[in-house]
């Protein structure tokens, strides 16, 4: 960074000395203080060519040549670390694309779930039992954590207090339980034996603590260290204890297999280890130095007597990890000799760019190796079983779908879908689902895989049953993704799954998760259940829901049940109305649940139901009104917030009297909660206030007497404006209140805030007033308030430190609403604007110009034309503005003034303004272009006579460039302006310009010129244009001819039925175009025919149209998509012009032609006709003489 600036500094100095007499900024005037003389002596006087020159030229004699000002180090490094650290763009680009990078901690809990074993062999009972065990485990775990948090560390002996039942009989000390064995036990019954072995063995360590004289027993450090070794080599312990002989070292074990096998052939494929061990390149792995010592090493190091080996306390997980080294893979035991088939031989090898049998992929990530490694192992496919081959086939297809190019992906997806039933669910899902569980998945990959699941699901139908839970585990997290489309995809799949598996199966599978120990699982399951309800219908699920919500067994189940009821209306909206009563009855009792969490979620569910049902269905809520309202008086804190929320949604459903009564019942609670400091509560309270204010039953008088006073006291304070969320809520609620209480009432209370010292607060006030007045007008604002209003907005407008559109909008709204009442204040406003137009800040000038364009209409209504003209004159002088945004606003303001006062009274006169605009049209800034073209177009439209034709032609040339603009609005405006100008100065000159444009190379400008010719033809009658155009067609140049055809196409599109007079004139030209060898030619001619034919429907030109049809018809065999589309469109147009039967006569011939290539296009024509005019085809169908096929109805004759 210092390099270039130094160089330019040196250059500047050089320039200063030999050029002007002025001193350079960088010149040191205190030369005499330093060693004088020629300071350039010893420098090369040309710019350094070699890079390394820079470094030593920078500092000479310890003094820099150029004053260098840089930020202090801590400022420079501010974003390098800590919370504000910015990610390294290059390093993390790949990672940031991954889904997990944007997931919250809660969402990341999806990775904690494992795919459940498939349910083939297990009964529902087994699953439920398992759930119980898991829950118990979680409970125990929690107890332990609590214990530890409450000072469990003080236990000196580190003997865990939790014991296995059998061992407890041993005495006062109990053996700790091995966590790993506990985990295993749940899955396989075979472990029972192992447990017994353990129990027998375990007393041994228990005895050890008994001899208290052993030194160091109490020292916690070796104990905990020791425990970690234990953990890593749990299974090694048994042989050690069984035989007193020295433990066989790891070394022997690891070397043994490798010694027997030959060294791996270089480049041979490997199967990566399923645990995904991180491979290290040889010699680069320094982790061995930091690795924990192995048991064998420790045994050698430490004395074998006088020590005891302590058990790790239950729940102990080592927290200490070596810093700065790669994480060691589990079971790492130091360097292991490479074996064949071991993934350490992956080291340093490039990832394959091409997988055999797959082709070029877009990318291949290291993680993919884990799943697709089999494809590169180089085994011969000839000696594989059918199952293996199938597996590989699926793998290949999946890889193509996930990593392939779009066309590859498409075919692979198609194959997967078509063959899904042959592959079978097991083979498919065993590969797809683990892929979806991968942590490093990116959005696109996930989307594609989910798509695969969706398609496969559709094909497999009821075969998916055994995999329902597995699929759910993978798909449920999508339901709480931030990405909307991911959520939709998730819903889609679950609903398809539900339809395929059936309600019974879904309930059986999801029931155990309802009271799962993990609230993440419960939450996602509830959402999934709601999707099932929407897929299979609410009534089918209602009995089950009722049972779950009343579950006696655990409050977790009740909580989840109510949550399902909450999610259903969120998902289905008003579709719940027919089942509203049933749903409400499900949750009614939970409002008084003993668990506060259940009460809360019940209130939220009722709120969701009421919101979805609005404005109907109050009768369904009858049963919960009483508990809800009494509950609101009893609850505090979070659950009160949810109760109030429910109340807020129910009140709008009630009729007047009830709404009034129930509002008064709850209002004192709400007003009490105005003063809360809880953000959530604030939000709820504000929402409830605006909801109640919206109901008819609540009167303005009531609001004024009871609500407004505390509301303004609590919410209209400065600190509310600081937080964006509060800000929005308060503004919205205030606007809602004003709808009932009236403008004057509300605005009067806040108008003085526009002069507040806090800018955010001023802005909040202006925005509120803007919204209120835009909504309700100012009819009840009296003179005094009116003064305050204008005064306030002017102050707010003037005192902006950052120009904000909110304030501008507020200003414009107030002025426009007051209308003629603004007259007295206008001089002041005009002065303000003119003053600010002079400001040196571009944003201020821009805003001033914008304000003019917003209030120009009001100014003319007030009879302040003179003022307007003055402003116009000032604006005219600012046309030299250099900031494009400001210039655009100034042009916009000028346009507004011209619109209001008319071109004649404009000062300076239009003929002076326009020449100034011509060069501005060359500006490439979109805003400038848009406003300039609009202004020019307006002048050309209203009063083109004021400007000389010469000037108009000049503008025409400038407009030509504008036809290339990116923004459609600009291109359209430019085209329209062409029309106006050609009307003013006659089409011939404009046309000549446009025609010459047809010869340019640039396609866009040719197209736009063609459009412009079409417009000119429309505004100046086609006969002024057509001869020149047809003449131009004689130019033997493809582009020109095409341009002419395109212009004709646009022309006929615009002139519609005017085309009737020109049909016979253009037919020869079209004839020529339709038999041209060039495809594009025929394509464009076809679109001319289409527009022509549509224009003259019913105007008696059938003969010409049949002629054109004969020329168009052979083109239906075209295959290029653009061409064939136009040709079909032309046939459609002609069908309208000459009637369906004629076209049908052409079509019958090919519908059953022997060649498929003929049948296909003919059927396309047939289908188009069928879609658009099936009824008209009935008389045209062929009448067959065969007795069966004959349409006897048509023979009926009276």
């Amino acid at each position: 960074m210092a390099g270039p600036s130094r160089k330019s500094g040196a250059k500047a100095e050089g320039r200063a000395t030999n050029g002007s007499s002025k001193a350079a900024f960088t010149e040191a005037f205190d030369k005499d203080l330093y060693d004088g003389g020629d300071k350039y002596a010893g420098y090369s006087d040309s710019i350094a060519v070699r890079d390394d020159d820079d470094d030593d030229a920078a500092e000479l004699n310890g003094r820099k040549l150029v004053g260098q000002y840089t930020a202090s180090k801590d400022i420079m490094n501010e974003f390098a670390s800590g919370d504000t650290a910015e990610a390294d763009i290059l390093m993390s680009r790949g990672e940031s694309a991954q889904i997990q990078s944007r997931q919250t901690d809660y969402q990341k809990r999806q990775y904690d779930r494992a795919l459940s074993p498939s349910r083939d062999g297990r009964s529902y009972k087994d699953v439920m039992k398992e759930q119980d065990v898991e829950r118990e485990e979680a409970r125990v775990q929690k107890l332990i954590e609590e214990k530890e948090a409450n000072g469990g560390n003080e236990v000196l002996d580190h003997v865990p207090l939790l014991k296995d039942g059998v061992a407890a009989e041993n005495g006062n000390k109990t053996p700790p339980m091995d966590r790993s064995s506990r985990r295993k036990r749940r899955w396989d019954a075979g472990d029972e034996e192992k447990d017994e072995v353990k129990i027998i063995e375990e007393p041994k360590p228990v005895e050890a603590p008994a001899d208290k004289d052993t030194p160091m027993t109490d020292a916690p450090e070796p104990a905990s260290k020791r425990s970690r070794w234990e953990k890593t080599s749990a299974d090694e312990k048994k042989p050690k204890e069984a035989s007193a002989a020295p433990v066989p070292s790891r070394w022997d074990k690891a070397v043994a297999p490798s010694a027997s096998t030959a060294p791996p052939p270089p480049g041979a494929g490997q199967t990566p280890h399923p645990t995904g061990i991180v491979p290290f390149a040889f010699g680069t792995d320094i982790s061995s130095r930091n690795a924990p010592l192995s048991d064998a090493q420790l045994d050698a190091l430490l004395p074998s007597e006088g020590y005891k080996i302590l058990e790790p306390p239950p729940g102990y997980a080592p927290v200490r990890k070596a810093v700065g080294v790669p994480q060691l893979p589990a079971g790492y035991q130091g360097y292991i000799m490479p074996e064949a088939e071991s993934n350490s031989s992956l080291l340093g090898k490039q990832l394959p760019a091409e997988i055999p049998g797959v082709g070029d992929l877009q990318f291949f990530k290291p993680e993919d190796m884990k799943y697709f490694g089999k494809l590169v192992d180089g085994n011969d496919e000839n000696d594989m079983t059918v199952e293996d081959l199938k597996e590989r086939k699926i793998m290949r297809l999946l890889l193509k779908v996930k990593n392939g190019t779009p066309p590859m992906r498409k075919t692979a997806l198609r194959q997967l879908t078509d063959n899904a039933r042959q592959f079978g669910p097991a083979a498919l899902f065993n590969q797809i689902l683990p892929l979806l569980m991968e942590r490093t998945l990116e959005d696109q990959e996930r989307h594609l895989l989910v798509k695969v699941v969706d398609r496969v699901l559709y094909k497999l139908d009821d075969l998916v049953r055994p995999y329902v839970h597995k699929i759910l585990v993978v798909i449920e997290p999508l339901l709480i993704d931030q990405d909307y489309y991911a959520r939709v995809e998730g819903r889609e799949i679950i609903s398809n799954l539900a339809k395929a598996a059936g309600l019974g199966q879904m309930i059986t599978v999801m029931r155990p998760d309802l009271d799962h120990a993990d609230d993440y699982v419960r939450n996602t399951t509830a959402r999934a259940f709601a999707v099932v309800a929407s897929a299979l219908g609410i009534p089918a699920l209602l009995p089950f829901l009722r049972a779950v919500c009343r579950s006696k067994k655990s409050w977790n189940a009740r909580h989840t049940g109510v949550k399902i009821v909450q999610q259903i209306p969120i998902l289905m909206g008003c579709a719940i109305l027919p089942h509203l009563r049933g749903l409400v009855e499900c949750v009614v009792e939970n409002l008084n649940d003993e668990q506060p969490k259940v009460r809360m979620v019940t209130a939220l569910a009722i709120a969701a139901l009421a919101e979805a049902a609005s404005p109907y269905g109050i009768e369904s809520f009858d049963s919960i009104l009483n508990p809800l309202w009494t509950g609101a008086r009893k609850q505090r804190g979070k659950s009160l917030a949810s109760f109030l929320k429910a109340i807020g949604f129910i009140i709008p459903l009630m009729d007047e009297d009830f709404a009034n009564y129930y509002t008064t019942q709850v209002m004192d609670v709400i007003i009490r909660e105005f003063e809360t400091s809880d953000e959530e509560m604030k939000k709820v309270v504000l929402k409830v206030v605006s909801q109640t204010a919206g109901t008819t039953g609540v009167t303005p008088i009531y609001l004024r007497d009871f609500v407004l006073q505390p509301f303004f006291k609590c919410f209209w304070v400065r600190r509310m404006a600081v937080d964006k969320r509060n800000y929005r809520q308060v503004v919205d609620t205030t606007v809602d209140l004003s709808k009932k209480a009236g403008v004057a009432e509300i605005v009067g209370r806040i108008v003085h805030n526009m002069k507040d010292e806090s800018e955010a607060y001023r802005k909040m006030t202006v925005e509120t007033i803007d919204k209120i007045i835009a909504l309700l007008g100012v009819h009840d604002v009296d003179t005094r308030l009116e003064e305050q209003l204008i005064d306030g907005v002017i102050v707010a407008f003037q005192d902006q430190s950052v120009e904000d559109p909110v304030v501008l909008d507020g200003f414009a709204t107030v002025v426009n609403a007051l209308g003629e009442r603004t007259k007295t204040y206008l001089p002041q406003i005009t002065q303000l604007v003119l003053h600010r137009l002079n400001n040196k800040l571009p944003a201020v000038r821009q805003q001033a110009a914008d304000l003019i364009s917003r209030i120009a209409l009001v100014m003319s209504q007030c009879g302040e034309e003179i003022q307007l003209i003055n402003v116009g004159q000032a604006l005219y002088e600012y046309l030299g503005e250099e900031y494009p945004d400001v210039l655009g606003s100034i042009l916009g303001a000028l346009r507004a003034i011209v619109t209001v006062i008319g071109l004649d009274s404009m000062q300076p006169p239009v003929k002076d303004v326009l020449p100034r605009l011509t060069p501005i049209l060359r500006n490439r800034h979109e805003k400038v272009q848009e406003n300039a073209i609009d202004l020019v177009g307006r002048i050309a439209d209203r009063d083109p006579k004021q400007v000389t034709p010469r000037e108009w032609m000049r503008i025409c040339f400038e407009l030509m460039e504008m036809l290339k603009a990116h923004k459609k609005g600009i291109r359209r405006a430019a085209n329209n302006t062409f029309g106006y100008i050609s009307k003013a100065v006659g089409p011939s000159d404009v046309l000549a310009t446009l025609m010459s444009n047809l010869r340019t190379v640039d396609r866009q400008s040719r197209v736009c010129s063609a459009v412009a010719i079409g417009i000119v033809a429309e505004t100046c009658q086609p006969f002024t244009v057509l001869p020149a155009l047809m003449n131009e067609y004689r130019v033997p140049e493809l582009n020109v001819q095409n341009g002419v055809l395109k212009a004709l196409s646009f022309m006929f599109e615009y002139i519609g039925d005017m085309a009737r007079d020109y049909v016979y004139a253009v037919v020869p030209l079209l004839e020529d175009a339709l038999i041209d060898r060039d495809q594009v030619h025929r394509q464009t001619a076809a679109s001319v025919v289409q527009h022509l034919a549509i224009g003259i429907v019913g105007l008696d030109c059938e003969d010409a149209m049949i002629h054109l049809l004969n020329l168009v018809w052979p083109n239906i065999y075209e295959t290029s998509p653009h061409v064939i589309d136009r040709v079909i469109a032309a046939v459609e147009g002609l069908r309208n012009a000459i009637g369906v039967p004629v076209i049908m006569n052409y079509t019958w011939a090919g519908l059953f032609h022997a060649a498929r290539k003929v049948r296909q296009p003919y059927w396309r024509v047939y289908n188009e006709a069928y879609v658009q005019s099936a009824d008209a085809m009935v008389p045209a169908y062929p009448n067959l003489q065969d007795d069966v096929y004959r349409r006897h109805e048509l023979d009926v004759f009276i």
Partner: protein
Amino acid sequence: MADKLRAQQQLEALQARYVGTGHADTTKHEWLQNIQRDTLASIIGHPPMLLYQSIAHGECREKTRIRLLERMIQPVGPPPEVRNSSHDNQTQAQ
């Protein structure tokens, strides 16, 4: 390839919406059946036509309507036996 696929999908969508549309593998029998149904539907859909038919048959309009509606079930008889299986596969694939 992609275009072909898209065209195929569009055709499928079209046929899901309009039963009477056809494709290169539509048999004459299917087509004629659609013709019959379209004709009957057209008569039913135009009250004057329906009245004309009912007067000609000397029955009330509703009876004619029902009769015509019922005629729409296999208006040209059951589909002919398919001779070669390869053709059958082709139509199924569509």
